[in-house]
């Protein structure tokens, strides 16, 4: 239990995916303009991360490892993730149109999101078990959510700020991200035990 808690806090705050591991930067920058979209994207990411962690873990454990095919991890994982996302999207569209409306537009973006594949590669690297992997995915998603939501608030404020011409748009967004990242350095030495 304590282990899991450590993973949870660790992945959320200490090694925040976006702010200190640099995973999932594209959606972080692309979808943080408005808090409402940020919320939708976060929901979708958490959802996909949890499911994909479970599925990729199973793939790795029962398909690749027994056959000594670890070198195919990248290709197998990405296939599984892509198919999973597309499948979820198709099903949601039909069965839960309202949820699809809320999350759907973000789903395809998630396939090409480092965070999902990244967390799969990380559980391999760290030799996590099934539950640990899933918790890790969930925590990484929460960390992503936290960063994205906070950042979307900041960006909404930047929208009406009087920013120098050359810095308008992406540059100031990156600099803002830098400042947010500095503040998250505070968590760097959080002792989880």
């Amino acid at each position, binding site marked *: 239990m304590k282990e899991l808690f450590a993973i949870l806090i660790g992945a959320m705050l200490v090694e925040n995916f976006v702010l200190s591991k640099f995973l999932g930067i594209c959606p972080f920058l692309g979808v943080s303009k408005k808090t409402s979209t940020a919320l939708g994207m976060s929901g979708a990411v958490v959802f996909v991360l949890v499911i994909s962690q479970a599925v990729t873990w199973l793939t790795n454990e029962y*398909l*690749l490892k027994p*056959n000594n*095919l670890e070198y*195919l991890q990248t*290709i*197998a994982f990405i*296939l*599984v993730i892509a*198919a999973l996302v*597309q*499948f979820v999207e*198709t*099903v949601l*569209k*039909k*069965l839960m149109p309202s949820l699809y409306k809320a999350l759907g537009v973000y789903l395809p973006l998630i396939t090409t999101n480092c965070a999902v594949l990244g967390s799969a590669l990380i559980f391999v690297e760290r030799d996590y078990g099934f539950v640990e992997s899933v918790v890790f995915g969930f925590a990484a998603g929460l960390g992503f959510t936290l960063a994205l939501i906070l950042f979307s608030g900041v960006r909404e404020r930047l929208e009406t700020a009087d920013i120098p011409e050359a810095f308008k748009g992406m540059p100031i967004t990156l600099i803002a991200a830098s400042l947010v990242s500095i503040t998250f350095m505070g968590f760097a030495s959080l002792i989880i035990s």
Partner: protein
Amino acid sequence: MSILVPVAVISGLGLAFGLGLSYASKVFEVKVDERIGKVRELLPGANCGACGYSGCDGLAEAIVNEGVHASRCPVGGIAVVNAISDFMGVDEGSIDVNVARVLCQGNCDNVKMKYNYLGIEDCHAANVLAGGMDACNYGCLGLGSCKKVCPFDAIVVENGLATIIAEKCTGCGKCVAECPKAIIKLIPVLSGFTVKCNSHDKGAIARKNCKVGCIACQKCVKVCPSEAITMMDNVAVIDSQKCTNCGECAAVCPQKCITNTIVQR
């Protein structure tokens, strides 16, 4: 031999997903009119919202489902309109594209000031204070409300007067709706001379307030060979249908408020 296992595993995955996805997309299919996607591709993709729909997707949907005319898109110009019309199988014929014009030349040098305005740079804000600080109650206030809404950066405000850069203007009409003085008009690109004044004041008053205001002297009406000019409530108005772009009126106007507005596109 060692190749067979990996190939089997991954291709098996591929096959399974291929079957699964294809099957799922069949079972869970939601019908979408493909034409929407096609039209969306033909649109310029600026997503500016100038058409009044939620971005290009919105307009594409409206074109297909509601039969909205493609010229709603101000960005793409005639080429896009024609391409979409072709695709939708409707012949729209040639359309005349409009550009916006500010019917006023009353900059700070030309028009007298009624008072010294202290406040927000916005024409509506000044207009509610006794109709704005210009002595002429019909002229451009020059605080740039139109400029703020123009999605195409086509308006410059200088010396208290807004001017539209015809090359950039797409005729979207946003400024027309915005101007509190209602002095921006959409005028066909190809039509020539325009009276750039909107003052309904009597001649004497108009002359007192502004150096370049129409004083309703009727000289242009008399000189126009095509009888295209009429006086309407103390301002001369040129009918673009009748105007032959001869330029006689501009030559006689004592106030120099008729100008050539032909736009080369």
